[in-house]
């Protein structure tokens, strides 16, 4: 095989042993890698609780990983989410993916539960289980310092996961997070503190000149993308560059989504952060965009907040404190929890209590969540469960228990649909309609219209499923397309594939998740948005009006989506579609 190593590492943590398995080549073609293969193994596990010892955690590279294909340095993690109860998956950058693949593994499937805290160390073909009671309770930075991975890639959890935070994250190489859906808690449930991988092998590539050509095409397209490589793009300002746009488009979630305009926004934008912290570029292994930023001043070495974190730790909780954003971001990363969910849960608490936060209070509540203290005991369960316990379920701005990120759906109707329908809950990345609704790529669509959006969202979900399986970075797709990546895939694997062939695999990968969620008991009821968006307007102005979403139009479009996706009106996967996609 070219592209794939053909080896999947199955680890049992109960017994501290492992075996190596290979898949039929056909399964590689059908599920590609990353999210696709992770989903394949998740479905095989059947309907188990997220913390059942037999519930696997799947970590997969893709066929493009550790090749010169641009932005292919990400790892995809899949398990059942502790937070949502649905398919839980997250993509993480850094160098872990590259190292794992170079060690000769397409992926790792972890089951069982270790009797004591353990680290898995994968060095080439050698697998070791390291007892690490001494790391229990240590934050992710201390773990990194203690394990000292050097050239190796390292993923670990912090105290938040060990103390049962439902949105605990996994931190890779100190600065990268698998943030969403609480997969850090899945690690903790298996007593797995860290996973390290180091390898020196090379991926076998079928057609190197072809791959070089594809690489050039992608690089040329990203250079032509203002959002990526422009002087206000991600390469210069990080994802925080989006902050001004959201303000300008009047869709910045403010006061727990009770407003869509945050007055002081123009003073808290990426340019302001850049002026205060003089960040330098940083990114995943082999990436040319380098969207991550590390401060060199004020708090040297601190990762600059991503856009979502910036927005939620300012507008959503009504804070004007830039330093607080950086500190909260740093604290969440060290404690190992998702910044979006953490901030959104605090915003929910603020709406319920009606009291504003001081900076100190925000930081101490974050610590309380992670340490399972005081109010933190409820807050660590995420906004939905927190609000339910306090008798105010309507204040949880979440879909399928996953707290919404920083794009108000009343300002982009494709996003409304994408949130509601995403298999992992309130997530912007599954269909990423921001690309056309805001960034005008591949062309602009009317953000205040549901017209045509059902099919657009369906196709985009399939596309992003491919991206997460290859594996590549979503940002690249603001500029390049599957046309170029199909060329890279063909060159690497030697399997002639068109963009549409890959999209067909994407449809299978996504539908498989729909089937899994159905097995877990989720249907149309879960494919919905908080009531607020249908009843309350956002903050219009500047010749833009932000009315509430039209409920009937939303439901109508959702119905169209079900039809296009091959689901019945309850959102249940249709047998004929299962058959067509070979998912029986």
């Amino acid at each position, binding site marked *: 095989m070219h592209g794939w190593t053909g080896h999947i590492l199955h680890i049992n943590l109960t017994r501290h042993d492992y075996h190596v398995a290979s898949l039929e080549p056909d399964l590689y073609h059908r599920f590609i890698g990353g999210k696709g293969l992770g989903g394949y193994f998740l479905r095989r596990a059947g309907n188990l609780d997220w913390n059942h010892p037999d519930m696997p955690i799947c970590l997969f590279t893709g066929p493009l990983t550790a090749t010169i294909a641009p932005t292919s340095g990400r790892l995809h993690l899949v398990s059942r989410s502790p937070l949502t109860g649905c398919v839980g998956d997250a993509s993480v950058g850094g160098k872990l993916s590259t190292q794992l693949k170079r060690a000769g593994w397409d992926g790792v499937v972890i089951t069982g539960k270790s009797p004591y805290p353990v680290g898995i160390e994968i060095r080439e073909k050698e697998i070791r289980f390291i007892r690490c009671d001494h790391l229990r309770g240590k934050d992710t930075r201390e773990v990194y310092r203690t394990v000292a991975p050097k050239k190796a890639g390292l993923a670990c959890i912090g105290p938040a996961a060990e103390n049962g935070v439902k949105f605990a994250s996994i931190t890779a190489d100190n600065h990268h997070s698998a943030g969403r859906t609480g997969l850090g808690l899945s690690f903790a449930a298996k007593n797995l503190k860290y996973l390290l991988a180091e390898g020196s092998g090379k991926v076998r590539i079928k057609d190197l000149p072809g791959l070089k050509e594809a690489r050039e095409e992608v690089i040329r*397209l990203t250079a032509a993308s*203002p*959002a990526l490589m422009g002087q206000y793009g991600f390469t210069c300002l990080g994802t925080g560059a*989006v902050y001004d746009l959201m303000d300008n488009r009047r869709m910045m979630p403010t006061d727990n989504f009770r407003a869509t305009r945050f007055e002081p926004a123009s003073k808290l934008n990426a*340019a302001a952060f850049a002026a205060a912290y003089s960040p330098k570029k940083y990114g995943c292994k082999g990436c040319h965009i380098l969207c991550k930023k590390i401060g060199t001043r004020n708090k040297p070495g601190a990762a600059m907040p991503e856009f979502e974190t910036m927005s939620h730790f300012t507008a959503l909780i009504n804070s004007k404190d830039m330093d607080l954003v950086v500190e909260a971001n740093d604290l969440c990363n060290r404690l190992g929890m998702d910044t979006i969910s953490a901030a959104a849960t605090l915003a929910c608490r603020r709406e319920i209590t009606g009291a504003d936060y001081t900076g100190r209070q925000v930081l101490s509540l974050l610590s309380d969540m992670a340490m399972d203290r005081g109010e933190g005991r409820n807050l660590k369960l995420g906004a939905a469960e927190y609000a339910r316990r306090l008798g105010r379920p309507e204040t949880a701005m979440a879909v399928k228990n996953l707290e919404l990120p920083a794009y108000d759906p009343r300002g982009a109707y494709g996003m409304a649909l994408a949130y509601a329908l995403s298999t992992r809950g309130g997530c912007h990345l599954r269909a990423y309609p921001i690309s056309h609704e805001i960034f005008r790529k*591949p*062309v602009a669509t009317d953000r205040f219209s549901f017209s*045509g959006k059902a099919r657009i969202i369906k196709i985009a979900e399939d*596309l992003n499923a491919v991206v997460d399986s290859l594996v590549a970075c979503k940002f690249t797709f603001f500029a390049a397309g599957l046309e170029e990546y199909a060329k890279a895939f063909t060159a690497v694997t030697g399997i002639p594939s068109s963009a549409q062939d890959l999209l067909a695999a994407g449809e299978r990968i996504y539908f498989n998740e729909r089937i899994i969620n159905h097995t877990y008991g989720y249907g149309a009821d879960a494919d919905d948005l908080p009531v607020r968006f249908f009843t309350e307007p956002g903050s219009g102005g500047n010749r833009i009006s932000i009315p509430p979403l039209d409920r009937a139009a939303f439901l109508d479009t959702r119905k169209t989506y079900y039809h296009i996706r091959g689901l019945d009106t309850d959102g249940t996967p249709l047998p004929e579609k299962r058959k067509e996609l070979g998912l029986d």
Partner: protein
Amino acid sequence: MDALIRKYEKKLIQAGLAEAEGPGRPIVGGLDYTLSWNRKGWETKELEPVFSAMAINSLVFFQPAPPYDKIIAYLAKEALTKNLPIQPEDCETRTFLHDLPVIPGFSTPDIITALKRRKCVIISDTGQNLPDAPKGPAIVAHGTVSPEQGFVVGSSVAFACFVKFFSDYLNHLQCGTAPPDMHGVYDELAPWLTGMAMPIPDLVKGPIQSEERVYEAMIQAGAKTVEYGLVDSYFGNISFCRDNILYISQTGSSLDELAGCIDPVPLDGSSSAGLTASSELTAHLETIARTGADAILHGHPRFSVILSMDCDPKKKQVCRFSTRCHTHCPKKREVLGVPIVPGEVGTGPTGLCNTLPLAFERNKDAAIVYGHGLFTLGRGDFTQAFATLLTVENRCRAHYVDCVTKLRQ
């Protein structure tokens, strides 16, 4: 969806790419819950399976109107003989389309196979396997988000083929290798080469006192640039600087529909609202800083583009950059006194933001980017920038015809 279908049908016609009436009227299809077409025709039945075979939401089909019909027919036939796609050298094709696949006749399976890989396919002669269908070439292009994609691609294909035909012809004449039938096609196209006797339009006059006037001036100049045929589809961009703010058209905005698509970018970098600005934002900012001009207009006038790629074949043969002219041409080149610089779209290491601003330093108010387009400057308003754009293109066209006439003698 129906509104979009109608909009892009109209745009294809307005752009002179397809006929407004009769069998040449374009076909635009859009699929959401159901599939709808702007009109029914023999093509719609044949094109319907494309929607079931691919994950797309729109399709554009048109038989190009003159002069594109003859140009594309010629290039398609040539490509089929060589068993290769059409490979234009202009910047847009290079960046966005890569190459243009060609199939001999109207065959739904062939269309599907081609469209699975590329954004478009050229049918050499629709009459070939469907005797009842009109003769001549056709373009099919698809979209996953909006019929706008099909329109843009179709229009880029027509532009790229136009540029390629006339570039190739000039090159063949210089090398003495012109195929006999190419002369014939050129002669048939002669009526399109006589130049436009269009006067320079009345544009908003400077000094421009308010933000509202800036928008008005830009919207107007953009619309005129399209009306005068100085861009293909909507590519091109425009900016104006006032009070330390650069107002610039958004990326992928249509120059004839700029209302609501202009980003104000503060020169002090205090806002990243320029995130959606044209990919040439940096080039505009640099140019303004270096020249003191306050208006920039950028279009893709065809003959300026064609002549920018004209290089003495003997010299080119021995040039070690001959496969990378668009990024590495080492020579200080000019056409009719207008400097030509290499550079790709955007801000990469070989991006035109590194070369274009320097070109203006030679005390010029116009510069051409190799195989791409013309940038012109104005002071106070767009009058001069527009006049230069139009004049340079008219002179380039006349110069091209002269060259051809001389070479043919």
